[in-house]
């Protein structure tokens, strides 16, 4: 029997019983759709978390002065035991490294702020205008530090929300002058409440231009340099290039440490991937149930069609041909159901995305392929038994039945 004829005969047999075929394909498609939708949810959760991490600056590469790891004996260690300072010039140089989107030098110190007769101790951050973008902070009032030469700081300050409240209350602080340390700075902006990061709240920060801070703290060195890579994929390259650049500038000595936030993110990525796999596993159970249903239906089909099977044998069909007919039918049923389910799953995921636009519920390709593959495999595996039973049927008994 030709394979095209086998296919046609099997699909005729399947469409000959529309209700049974329909129900079976429904069960199979629900199984596959469950896999597709649940993995879309799991993977969506992963993308969502990664996205959120990216939002708080996951593309960050941070340069710290000094080397954190210890190396073996090195003659250079004898000559210079103290690391070179990380300077504003280093920071400016990093802007020329390819893959770097923006940089932010950071200098931190404690100081006092006083205005309207109130005095408060506060943490001061000296940085540049890009800091707000690098750290993804939000401004409540006014504007952030103005763009300018890193070495000539303007006399301006951005206040944390709590400081503003404690010093000015409900009064508008914009344009007012505050005394910070021994300088008088003009308030140009106020951060929104609740910002946090790097282990401290931004509510109690004073943000001033880096040169101003250096002058106040009487230092040339930086606390660290924040480097933002253009994309997540470039983080690795940027990290090496940054290290190379600084090493070059520091006369070939590797006296800085470069770290990324990506390591944390990768851990999350891994955890959520496992979660997705777990969810897919649960969904696969419904596929297995659908597979058993295929077997059930095919067994019923064999019982109902004994007469037909006997006839086929009387007409000269070999056992192999009969087995093939039933196998092909089972595979056709599960595969069609599987494809239907994939469509349903994509539709469901699309509806989810429509309902929750922030949630990227896209089914991963591997899950779709696995779903279809499982449908096909269950058709093959669970089709074997009914097909064998059909092939082994005694033609006389099959014919005399009914």
């Amino acid at each position, binding site marked *: *029997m*030709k394979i095209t*004829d086998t296919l046609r*005969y099997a699909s*005729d*047999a399947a469409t*000959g019983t529309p209700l049974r075929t329909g129900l079976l394909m429904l069960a199979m498609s629900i199984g596959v759709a469950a896999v597709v939708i649940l993995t879309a949810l799991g993977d969506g959760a992963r993308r969502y978390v990664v996205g959120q991490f990216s939002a708080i600056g996951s593309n960050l590469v941070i340069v710290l002065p000094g080397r954190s790891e210890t190396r073996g004996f090195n003659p250079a260690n004898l000559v210079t035991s103290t690391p070179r300072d990380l300077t504003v010039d280093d920071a400016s140089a990093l802007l020329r490294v390819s893959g770097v989107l923006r940089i932010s030098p950071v200098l931190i110190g404690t100081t006092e702020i006083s205005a309207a007769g109130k005095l408060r101790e506060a943490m001061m951050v000296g940085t540049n205008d890009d800091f707000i973008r690098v750290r993804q902070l939000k401004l409540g009032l006014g504007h952030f530090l103005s763009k300018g030469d890193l070495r000539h700081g303007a006399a301006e300050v951005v206040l944390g929300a709590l400081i503003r409240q404690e010093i000015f209350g409900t009064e508008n602080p914009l344009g007012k002058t505050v005394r910070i340390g021994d300088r008088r700075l003009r308030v140009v902006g106020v951060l929104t409440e609740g910002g946090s990061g790097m282990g401290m709240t931004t509510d109690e920060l004073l943000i001033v231009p880096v040169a101003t801070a250096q002058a106040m703290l009487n230092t040339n060195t930086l606390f660290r340099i924040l480097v933002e890579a253009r994309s997540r994929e470039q983080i690795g390259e940027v990290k090496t290039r940054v290290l190379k650049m600084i090493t070059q500038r520091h006369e070939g000595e590797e006296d800085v440490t470069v770290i990324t936030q990506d390591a944390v993110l990768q851990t999350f990525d891994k955890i959520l991937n496992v979660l997705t796999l777990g969810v897919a596993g649960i969904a696969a159970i419904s596929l297995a149930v659908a597979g058993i249903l295929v077997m059930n239906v095919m067994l019923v089909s064999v019982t109902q069609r004994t*007469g*037909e099977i*006997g*006839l*086929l*044998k*009387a*007409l*000269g*069909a*070999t*056992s*192999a*041909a009969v087995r093939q007919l039933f196998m092909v039918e089972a595979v056709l049923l599960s595969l069609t159901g599987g494809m239907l389910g994939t469509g349903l799953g994509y539709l469901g995921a699309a509806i989810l995305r429509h309902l929750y636009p922030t949630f990227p519920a896209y089914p991963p390709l591997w899950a779709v392929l696995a779903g279809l593959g499982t449908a096909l495999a269950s058709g093959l595996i669970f089709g074997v038994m009914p097909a064998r039973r059909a092939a082994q049927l005694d*033609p*006389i008994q099959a*014919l*005399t039945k*009914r």
Partner: protein
Amino acid sequence: MPEAAESLIVLNGIDRTFTLGDSKVHALRNVNLNIAPGEYIAVMGPSGSGKSTLLNLIGLLDRADAGTYQLEGRDVTTLDPDEQAKVRSERIGFIFQSFHLVPRLTAAANIELPLTLSGMPAAERAKRVSQALKEYGLTDRAQHRSNELSGGQRQRVAIARATILRPAVLLADEPTGNLDRVTGEEVVRLLEALNTQGMTLIVVTHDQALGARARRQIRMDDGSIVSDVTSKPSQPT
């Protein structure tokens, strides 16, 4: 018995025993039979006499427990199932009391079935099927399913299906059992016409009138042939 002519079917000492529960039923006991090409045989006997078993055995649907069966000079008892299927496909045509049409297929598709199973190319199949439809006067019924056909038409489809590969032997098990007298008569004439063309016809029946039309009548009882009469060629038809 036409010993001289080259035999089409030779059964030698055939035994067939069924086990029902713990009792054994002898469906066939030491059956010896010699059938020449082109014979018209009626096998008669009460229910359970073994006549259907005999027919199934000749049709290679059943195996003998003992004895040999030669079809066209070839021992077919020892063939493996796939080879037997090939013999069934090419040399044997079956006609059943309940027609056994595949209900979801059209008349044409039912007739085509043996050709499809044998792996014949589609173009050749279509040609043969349309010719068969014409021969059996079913051309205008070609696209009807079996539930849209009358009993006589169904049996005609079944006969067309059984003979489309030009088998040597046509085995009919109560071919008129489910038909009224007039259509039954029609079907018998059709079968007899095929026999006249040279096809060996073996009919199993309860119907004495139908059995009487055959040139050779075999009576069976309790698994044995009790009488084997060949009447004169002159037939009342």
